[in-house]
């Protein structure tokens, strides 16, 4: 049996043992997310507009991840709304930045892997890179909105007379606690993902300037920076959405 399937079964059993029904739902969302990710690549290969396909996939993936991670529906709904807002702001940042930075497609380091492949495929790789960036940030946005929304939910439950402005303040406080660790998830992900690339840079004596302008590295770096900016934006936006809803409910 393929190692991927066995690893998947190990993960599934562990999630089921530790999380019960919630574990089952989370595993299901992982499978569905993979399905939607692969399906969107296939759609792009069939010349559907990449950015639109990705935004639709993004909304579906956010919904799946947030609603299937299993807190109550009210919180999940607000978290979902906030995550969509963050996604759209990020898209507005990603599109011009990708045009400016021009990190699409492949770099000189990819030459070996491209041997025998035709790269003239008639699809604009700038759009593909925009799609990549949007998809890569989805996980981080979903995680941050869930963390803040469930943190605030806990507070609402314990102090049912809390003022909306106070709730907003608490949201930022919860955000401060999660940002340090989320930053680590993202940057260790970057370190891990670019490890072999850095070994390459070192053995071929790239200078600092070479690395700063390297297409392949920059593509990975800006995806992490987009995710980071997404997480930072999530903190005030989620807090604001939840506080506003709380204000409406109390009036």
């Amino acid at each position, binding site marked *: 049996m*393929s*190692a991927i*399937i066995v690893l998947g079964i190990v993960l599934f059993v562990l*999630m089921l043992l*530790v999380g*019960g029904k919630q574990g089952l*739902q*989370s*595993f299901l969302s*992982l499978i569905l*997310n993979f399905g939607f*990710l692969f399906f969107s*690549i*296939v759609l792009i290969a069939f010349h559907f507009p990449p950015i639109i396909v990705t935004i639709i996939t993004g909304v579906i993936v956010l919904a799946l*991840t947030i609603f299937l*991670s299993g807190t109550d529906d009210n919180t999940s709904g607000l978290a979902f709304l906030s995550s969509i807002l963050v996604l759209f702001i990020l898209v507005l940042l990603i599109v011009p930045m990708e045009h400016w*930075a021009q990190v*699409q*497609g*492949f770099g000189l380091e990819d030459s070996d*892997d491209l041997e025998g*492949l*035709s790269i003239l495929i*008639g*699809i604009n790789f700038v759009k593909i890179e925009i799609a990549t960036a949007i*998809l*890569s*940030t*989805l*996980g*981080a946005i*979903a*995680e941050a909105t869930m963390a803040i929304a469930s943190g605030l939910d806990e507070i609402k439950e314990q102090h049912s007379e809390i003022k909306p402005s106070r709730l907003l303040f608490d949201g930022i406080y919860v955000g401060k*606690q999660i*940002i*340090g*660790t989320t*930053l*680590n*998830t*993202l940057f*260790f*992900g*970057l*370190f891990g*993902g670019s*490890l*072999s690339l*850095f*070994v*390459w*840079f*070192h*053995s071929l004596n790239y200078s600092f*300037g070479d690395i700063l*302008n390297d*297409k392949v590295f920059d*593509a990975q770096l800006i995806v*992490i920076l987009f995710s980071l900016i997404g997480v*930072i934006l999530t903190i005030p936006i989620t807090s604001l959405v939840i506080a506003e809803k709380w204000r409406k409910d109390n009036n």
Partner: protein
Amino acid sequence: MAKLLNKLPFKMILAFLLGGILLITFANHDDFLYQKPIFKVETAKKISTDKSTDSFQNTDYTYQQKLTGHIINGQYKGKKISINNSYTMSRAMDHKYYPGQKAFIILHKSGGLNATIKDYKRDVPIIFLMYLAIALLCIFLKFSGITAVGSIIINTILFMLAIYLDGFNNGNNVLLIFSALAAVFSAITLLVIIGHNRQMYVTLASTIICTFISIILSLIVFKFTHEKGIFYESMQYVTQPPRPLFLASTIIGSLGAVMDESTDIISSLFALKMERPQISKKQIFLSGRNIGKTIMGPLINVLFFIFMGETLSMTLLFLKNGNSWGYSFSMNMSLGMVQSLISGIGIVLAIPVASALTSLFAKESQK
């Protein structure tokens, strides 16, 4: 809303805005720092268009443009040259130049001064985005933002040192070096985030134990499946034996997420223990499990999308080159998938391990 606006630190925003303008202005004029010759485009004119169709019926266009401009650094500074550049509609490995943009060039001195374009100069947008992220961190999170950036800088330096050490040994001890780095990474990061106390040691133990067990578990799976379906030859940018390099990058990549999960669970449990000192060990363990299971799903997704996202361009290229879905997946996404699964296992393991460690060791602090 108005209240919120009043709370925004306007002085800080203004300072960052000013600093940003200065930094970007400097980055726009940093050409003198580069050894390689840089060319600034002044005029760009399209001179020809070619339509091409490959053997898989992909239609694309190749354009030629004539660029004129000046070299703006080095010994040929101020020399005016013209360069032909070709770009394609798909832009996979090329770039369409507009007036005002800069490029690194290679000079050929045979028979006058000729040059070919090497690559687009993209340091300004990269610096801009880094600065934007740091500024937002500091504005929204104040002091916590600054410490977070500090820990990233320290870790980057350590990472570079490890890469250097690995190169020094020609990659013989890559797994050992990066396992050690993983331990040092976790210790430093947790010291910065949590501070030097019992909670930090419990979190550190949980992070290291779970990362370690997840790798051991995976190695066992690899052994029994004979690594079927894992294509190390598809790994990119390898200059060393790929297998240990892959494992090393998986350890480092999953470390942050395992740390994230452990920190979230343990800090909540320590807070709980402080509020209710009489709470039983079993109760602590169960609370830890409750906190952990809501965050594990989203957290696994974070790494999943980062690891899989970067394979998108190459997978698409494989699909457009007439390869089947299965082959395109295997050659591009299988390694990212394995990495996601291994880190997922580490993240899930962190729930019982972090909860158990806290229930065992939080108690002793009361004595």
